[in-house]
Each structure stands twice: as C-alpha cells, then as structure tokens.
C-alpha cells in the first residue's frame, strides 16, 4: 500500500502521479466535480482542509482542495473545480478515462481533534463549499463526536449553489442546521437574500464552546470575522482556509507567502489567533 506522498518524497516533489478521471459531474456551468483514482491502488490519505496540486499535462498545475472527506474515500477522491483559467479551462473539456496529474496531499489540515465536542459553525461563501464539504461530511460521519452543526452558505444566485443534492440531504437532517442565502434571488427563491453575514441573526451559538470554520472568497473573511468576534467566539476558535497564488504547494515558490508563513505548508488553514498580527493576511 503506497501513499502518494511517499512517492513524491522519494523521487521528485514536482513529478505528479497520473490519476484517471473516473467520473465527471457538472454542478453549475462553471463548476464540475471530478472523481479521480490513483494508479496501482495508491492512496491519497488526506485530511479535511488539505489540497492537491492538480495538473493537466502540457497546460499547467493548480492547487485544488479535496472536496471528498477522508471518511468517504472508496478508492477515489473528488475535486470540485471552477473553470477559472488555463488549466481548469482545459480540464473542463476532459472526459472520463482521461489522465491528469496529482501531487499531494498538501497543507495543514483542520485540527479536527481540537474540534471534538465543540459546536461547529460553518460560514461558507461560493466555492468555499468545496473544501468545507470535506469537513462537513467527515463530521456528519462521526456525528456523535461534535456538538451543534450549523452551516451558513451563501452564493451569488440560486443557480450558483453547489452540491444541492447534499444541501438537501443536510437540510433534512435534524442534527444539522442549514441556512442558505443568495446575493441575487431568482424566480422561485423564497430563502434569504443578502450577504452571508445577514444569516448570523438567524443562529444562536454558545460562543465559548464554538468553533467557526470560514471558507470563501477573500472579501468575505473580514465581515464574517467581525460577526464571530462580535458574538464572542474565541480568536483561537475561528478558522479560515486561505487562498493564495501557489506554484509548488511545498513551501518553495514563494507565491503564497504571508509574512514569514507559507500558505501551502503553514496553512491553508489558519486560526485568527495565528494570523491576527500579520498585516495584510486577511
């Protein structure tokens, strides 16, 4: 049983293994879920919050969060990818059976054992659901180990909501509190309209025992943070996953540097306590 990570550590950090696309599911016109298998039964062995460096050979490579949770790895893993540029654009034209490159898993995962017994509040914007889904499903698969689970999720329009089947599933559960919002409603939308922070008034938290996991576009973070701090959630319990430009994923290329930290290896998950003194981090 080889681990992908052992493979790259033993040969070259930059040589991906050739993974096969086993399935592609379009969520929206811009986002697709790619289900990948590694060769020779190799294992990815990731933890929630980590990412892989995904390549289309001849085009390029980009960091992509692993959206499937470790608790649901049945010989494959999933990536939810937005068509945002070169590599992702060509990836979106690919078909099952095609080969892509994968390196990883990289990055510091969420410290799940520090979350045990805590109430969890997820504040998610847009594509942030991709990494969040990995944490959420992991938590739901071990539901007993955590307190309340509150999920706040915002998208631009109802059509931009990702993983709607799973959203419905979570909504049906009595042990999950799900609140959705959109910036711009569409025909038939009877839910909340407004930015994600407008959802906070709908939820009650026991601040001292709450862990907040915030995932979304950079602009969202400051506002969510103000809400959470305002509710009294401790600084060390407020977690983010940061996005930065990355070329290597292993703390060499310098692109993702935030002060002395490298987002790819010291993060991408950070607690507010860790980064609050770092100007420009948020």
């Amino acid at each position: 049983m080889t681990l992908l990570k052992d493979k790259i550590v033993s040969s070259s950090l930059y040589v991906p293994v050739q993974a096969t696309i086993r399935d592609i599911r379009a969520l929206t016109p811009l986002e697709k879920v790619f289900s990948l298998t590694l060769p020779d039964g190799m294992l990815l062995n990731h933890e929630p919050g980590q990412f892989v460096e995904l390549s289309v050979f001849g085009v390029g490579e980009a960091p992509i969060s692993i959206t499937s949770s470790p608790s649901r790895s049945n010989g494959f893993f999933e990536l939810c990818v937005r068509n945002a540029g070169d590599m992702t654009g060509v990836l979106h034209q690919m078909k099952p059976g095609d080969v892509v490159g994968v390196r990883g898993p990289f990055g510091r995962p969420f410290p799940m054992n520090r979350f045990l017994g805590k109430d969890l509040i997820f504040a998610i914007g847009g594509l942030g659901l991709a990494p969040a889904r990995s944490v959420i499903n992991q938590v739901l698969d071990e539901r007993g180990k955590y307190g309340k689970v509150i999920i706040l999720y915002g998208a631009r329009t109802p059509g931009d909501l990702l993983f709607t089947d799973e959203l419905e599933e979570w909504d049906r559960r009595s042990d999950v509190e799900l609140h959705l919002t959109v910036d711009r409603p569409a025909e038939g939308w009877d839910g909340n309209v407004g930015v994600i922070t407008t959802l906070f008034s709908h939820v009650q938290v026991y601040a001292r025992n709450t862990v907040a996991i915030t995932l979304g576009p950079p602009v969202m973070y400051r506002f969510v943070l103000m809400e959470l701090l305002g509710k009294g959630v401790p600084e060390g319990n407020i977690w983010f996953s940061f996005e930065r430009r990355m070329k290597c994923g292993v703390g060499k290329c310098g692109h993702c540097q935030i002060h002395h930290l490298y987002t790819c290896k010291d993060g991408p998950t950070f607690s507010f306590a860790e980064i609050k003194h770092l100007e420009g981090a948020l």
Partner: protein
Amino acid sequence: MGFRVMPKSAFPGWVEQMLQTYRVVGPRKIRDRYMFDEVNSPGDLDLTYSTTVLPPKKVLLPQHEELLSFDLESGKMEAAIDTQPTVLLGVHTCDLHAIRLLDAVFEDGYADQHYIARRQNVLLVSLECLSPCTEKSFCKSMGTLSVTEGYDLHLTDLGDSYAIDIGSERGQALLELTENAQPATDADYSRLNQTLSDKWPRFPYRLESDITELANLLAVSYDSDLWEELGEKCLGCGSCTIVCPTCYCFNVIDEVDFSLNAGSRIRQWDGCTLSQFAVVAGGHNFRSTNQERQRHRFFRKGKYQMEAYGLVGCVGCGRCAEACLVDINPVDTFNELSRRRIPMTRRHKEVLP
C-alpha cells in the same frame, strides 16, 4: 583543518586538472561585465572580478530548468535530476552566505530533490573578498564579509599565492588534484592573518543600525510613509529580485510538442516585485501596488527569512542597488526607516478596525 598554500603560477594547472573531471563554473569577463559561466580553459576565469550580474545561485537553481518530462502516449514521466559534477569557483563570501540560505529553504520540510541533487554535486570554492566589489555593496554591515563554513575550499589571495582553506573532505580531494598545494608555514599564517586584518578597514559599514535590529525595525515600520514613496518611484521592473542571490521564488510552466501529449514542465525565476506575483484566479491581487510589493520585498530580506529560517535574507552584495534604475536599495531603505522609526505605541493599533 588548516590551510595550504599554492603559488598562483600553479593555479591554471590545477584548473586544468579540474576540467578533466568537472564542469567548472566561475566568473568570466564578458565585455564590461562579469558573469558566472562555464569555463573552458583556466584563462577564461577572472578571479579579480567585482561582482557578477546574476549570482552563482544560477548554477544551483537555473533561470530556466526542466523539472520533468512527460509523454502521455507511453505514460512515461521522468524527473529531470541534474547530477553533473561541478566546481563552482570563485564565489564571494556574500554569495556563499546566500547559498546557505538557499540550502535551508530547499532542505526545509519537503526537500527539493532537484536543488539538492545539484547542490550535492557542486563543490564550492569560495574566495575571500579583500576590497569592496562595488560602491553599493554592504556585506560588512550584513555580517557576510567573512565565512567560516559552507565551502569545500576557500581561497585567499596572498599576492603571489593563494591560501586555501579546506572545508570538507570533498574539498580536500579536489585540492589533491594538484601537487602544488603545500602545507602552510608559520610565515604563511602570519601573511594570511595580516591580509585579513588589512582588509577589514577597507570595507565601510553602511547600515546605520545593527542587523540584529532589522527585524524589529521592520516590525514597527509596516505603516511607514516610506513605502508609499518607494512605491511611487519603483518601476516594477523586477530587476532587484531577479539579481538577488537570496531570492528563489519561481514560476512553473508547461511546454508541449505539437502532439500536445508530450513535453516538459519548466521552473523559471519569478519575483515578488512583479505585479502579477500574488494574483489569484478571479483577479484578486494580494499585493496590488508597487508600494506593497516593495514592502514585502524588504520585509523578506530583513525579517521574514530570519523568522522562517534563522538566516538573514539579505547578504549585502549590492546587486539590486546596481540594477535599480531609480536607486531603491536596501541600505537607504533600512537607514531611512531607522531615521523615521515609528514609536511602538503608535504602531500598536489593531490589524482590524
């Protein structure tokens, strides 16, 4: 390990010997500038060089480097690991310090096999600087004017001969290629000591504060007005980061042949002073102005690298100052920050409103 002495007349012969087994890279004069370049005969070398345009890091981390080649048709994928035995000759002490930082970066965490393979196959023959190489160098201020480790061999020019310090067994073996390196006599010791003590006063201190204070100075200078002033002047040309021996940021691109199925992945130098360095998909730029980029650059040099690797991020070679058309340079920047030092209390506002 002590040192040996080799008459200068024997030096070319020694280089000839090296050329039998090694690729030799050293400073060459090309028109009005010096470059580290492959040496084909001892005459190509010019050890009296001032400073080179690019630092010797290019031997360990080439400007344009194949990381891997692939062929999807056959499924072949190969790491390009370069293990060519190389002597890197005539490295100034500041650059030697810079290589130590590069070593730390590329060995840290996941070790970068490409860098390390090169590094392990490179013999470093450094050279004691006896007078400032340019008006813009400030190695003495940065504590890089001398070295005690990190080399395989270290040369000091004693006039008609070289004193050669042996820093490793590999260095020793390299020296054994010649029979003309004799054990040092007492006279040689005193000549070397004299040379070293004579050289010291020739170098000015150019920084007005001590390097141990740099990190603190920067910590309180994040909001200094100076960044705005530098930002206005800075052309964003990126030269300063490209020529820096301690910069190692890179970009990775793919090249393909017309089959679109085979090609290679290339690593090439990048720099944090370039406008697109921190742009992410969707167009957000985490450092969108020259001002922020200059600040980041100097923080890396004076603070971040120290915090991350325990080594100073600027070795005072002065290349960036030579390269900058608008005369933005570490000495003036750090000195000006020091003059404008912002009291801690004023700075101690929250990061968030």
